[in-house]
């Protein structure tokens, strides 16, 4: 499986897609034999596209993201990405023994950027997330929103074509979250990176994405997709955002209700 993945990654298909997920299934050993978590997921992310994966608990969205990140292997199907994707978590996952700047430099170092260029590049990335002057700050000296921005800068330092985000703003307060939505939209537009963003917040999904993919739960399947054509930057309060959110929420609730019936 690993060699198949590696070979596929070198093929030309990767150029047209930041990520291509084909007929991917994943099961884990459970108390009653193998438990199917993801069932035949097929999903492409085009270069520069912003896709949100939306679903209730148990839809396997984080599992899918782990598979795309290469942290785990699918039971069936193939996933191809153009190089190693960067991954952002709900927790900032910054290393507390390093300063904000050194966290970013570690990502650069592991990517093989020469020492002489790291400092300058790290300062640039900090400026991109509007944290100029925070190079020497320790992680615990930063607020939750600032930590997630440093984490974003560290993910961008991997210079990957694809940025995977696993509910990165879920633990933040609402005011900070709104601001970070604006920031993410701006950075996405400036860098041209593709984003696959997992969330259970419908409005957040609509606020950010060009395409919203709804997953059903247990097992996770692609239930429906929506294109979001509203121009960016949007606001979470915009009427069209609210309207589409309402529509998606109804479908999502329908999916959840199915689990209550036997």
């Amino acid at each position, binding site marked *: 499986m690993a060699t198949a993945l590696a070979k596929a990654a070198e093929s030309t298909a990767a150029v047209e897609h930041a990520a291509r997920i084909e007929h991917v299934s994943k099961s884990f050993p459970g108390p009653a034999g193998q438990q199917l978590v993801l069932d035949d997921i097929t999903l492409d992310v085009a270069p520069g596209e912003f896709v949100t994966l939306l679903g209730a608990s148990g839809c396997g969205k984080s599992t899918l993201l782990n598979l795309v990140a290469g942290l785990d292997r699918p039971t069936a199907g193939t996933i191809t990405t153009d190089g190693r994707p960067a991954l952002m978590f709900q927790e900032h996952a910054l290393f*507390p023994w390093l300063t904000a700047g050194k966290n970013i430099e570690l990502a650069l170092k592991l990517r093989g950027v020469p020492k002489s260029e790291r400092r300058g590049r790290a300062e640039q990335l900090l400026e991109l997330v509007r944290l100029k002057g925070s190079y020497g700050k320790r992680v615990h000296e930063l607020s939750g929103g600032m930590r997630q921005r440093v984490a974003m800068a560290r993910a961008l330092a991997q210079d990957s074509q694809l940025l995977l985000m696993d509910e990165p703003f879920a633990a933040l307060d609402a005011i900070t979250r709104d601001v970070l939505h604006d920031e993410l939209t701006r950075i996405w537009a400036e860098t041209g990176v593709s984003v696959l963003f997992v969330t259970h917040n419908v409005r957040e999904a609509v606020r950010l994405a060009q395409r919203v993919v709804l997953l059903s739960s247990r097992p996770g399947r692609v239930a429906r997709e929506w294109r979001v054509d509203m121009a960016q930057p949007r606001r979470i309060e915009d009427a069209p955002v609210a309207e589409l959110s309402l529509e998606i929420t109804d479908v999502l609730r329908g999916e959840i209700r199915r689990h209550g019936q036997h």
Partner: protein
Amino acid sequence: MASTETTDPTADAPVKDRGDAGGLEAGLDALETSVASRTPFRQTFVNKILPPIVAVGVVLVVWQALISLKIVDDPTKLPSPADVGNEFRDAWLEGTLLGYIWTSISRGLLGFLFALAIGTPLGLLVARVKFVRAAIGPILSGLQSLPSVAWVPPAVIWLGLNNSMMYAVILLGAVPSIANGLVSGIDQVPPLFLRAGRTMGATGLKGAWHIVMPAALPGYLAGLKQGWAFSWRSLMAAEIIASSPDLGIGLGALLENGRNASSMSMVFEAIFLILFVGIAIDLLIFSPLERWVLRSRGLLVKG
């Protein structure tokens, strides 16, 4: 800004807001960042330095009272503070005081460095290799509770009355602590750090060097601190039990000499010196190191 697709009457407002998004963010950052101030020296003195001085003062007063009020009236059981002070002064004037201390400290630190060199790779091995952990993990934890003085008789028989025997006893006392500290440090590395490291390409040796080792540092340091305490205790036990003219006079030997000479003030002198050195090494080396590591990670709770 193509707002044609939206019929929202406030659609223009975001444009204005966004022009100042940086300012908004700077405001949020400022609101959420607390400014840490340095505690003034006066407060540090009252909270940290004064209490131990008072405690030592109280002990000295009670001690002197026991003598003055003739509650204990037997210098062979309890010498007066002045007698013990004289003992210190005599040793200092004869130039032997620093010699006693140095004999023990040099042995203790050298033994500790050996223990470090053995305990660290041993800890890594136990933490990372499942078979090794299953094989010697429990023994290593058990050895921590074995008083290292138990090793003195066999060490004397195996190695004779010399410095090697002292080092052997120190090693057997300190190595388990250091290795165990490293093992628990590595066990407590948050899995999130390992995942984050892996997505950045830190796997295998790179992962061990950039992620696991620095993340395990606080546990490792705690192990070192305990390892030093065990080294020092083991060494004193060895020096008290195994005295020989060839070994030079360390603090343990000084204590034993005091007992043989029935000089209680010399015994007290030795006890105070042993205590003093143990505390001094901890205060001068391990505590600052530990505080620095914890503070730089925001793990030190301000008391």
